[in-house]
């Protein structure tokens, strides 16, 4: 296979597989209404998923290092505090990210 064709094939397959994972719930309920338990899951899952995503994002934090992921934990704390105080997601992201970038350059170098 030529290089261009191979590259196109890799992108095409990854795209197709990604579409399948994103499309499955809709394909399953294309014609009929989803049953009550699926509608129920749709309502309660987001709260569980977002927490799992936070843990997932922090999975490669240096927990075993002497700092025990302090930069990450402190910055997550800053996000929580800012969000409770300002109730504005943009402020919380800015404060938390800035805090993290400062911490890993000063107190807890990577």
């Amino acid at each position, binding site marked *: 296979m030529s290089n261009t064709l191979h590259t196109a094939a890799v992108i095409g*397959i990854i795209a197709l597989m990604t579409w399948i*994972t994103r499309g499955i719930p809709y394909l399953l309920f294309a014609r009929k209404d989803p049953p009550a338990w699926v509608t129920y899951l749709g309502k309660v899952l987001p*709260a*569980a*998923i977002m*927490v*799992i995503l*936070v843990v997932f994002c922090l*999975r490669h934090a240096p927990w075993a290092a002497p700092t025990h992921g302090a930069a990450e934990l402190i910055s997550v704390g800053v996000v929580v505090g800012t969000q409770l105080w300002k109730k504005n997601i943009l402020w919380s992201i800015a404060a938390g990210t800035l805090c993290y970038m400062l911490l890993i350059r000063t107190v807890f170098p990577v």
Partner: protein
Amino acid sequence: MKPFSYALKQVTPILLSYLFIGIASGLLLNQAGYGPVWAALSALLIYAGSMQIVMVTLMTAGVPLAVVAVTTLLINARHIFYGISFINEFRAIGREKGQRWKYPYMALTLTDETYSVLCSLRLPAGEYRHKVEFTILFLCHMIWIASCTLGAVIGQALPADLTGIDFSATALFTAVVVNQWREARSHLPAVIGFISAIFFYFVLGPDQMILPALSASVVALLFVKKRLPTEELEGAHE
């Protein structure tokens, strides 16, 4: 407020994270010898940050296509869980006159970030909300394509040291968790998610945790269904 202005305001929290991750993935691709056209094409069709970064390795390593397929399924399987919350909503949008094409488009542009923004939306059901949701998904997709392409065009390391800016994604999800926690009448779903994530992090390790954690949460949530009457829940959509 016009649907477009409203949507634009909701998109801003994603901007930083998309710009950075998009540029980073475009840079990587370009350094591996694949130029801006490939970056734009994969951003348009794949539209998944972590997968596009893994893709560079898959391309350069000359991995068989079947392995590419399985790897993609494993990395992106979490998306299956996102769609569940929007089946009724996107179907309703597809039923509007001349909007049929929006249904598949919206289903296929639900990413970690756009999912969290749509879940945070607090608007009454109806055409206005539908327009806002579509515009959010469309704008984010365009921002993503622009950032990936830009990364490949820049073609070398970024001028400034931006190490750590990827924390903005973690910050976005954390802020959404805080919002959901404050609005929710029952904290059981969040607690279930946390326990299963921590459990599988320790049992299976950081790289194998997410799918088992999501699946276990689904099972646990079905198990406590009777204790969580849906009418009392502040869901993403009703």
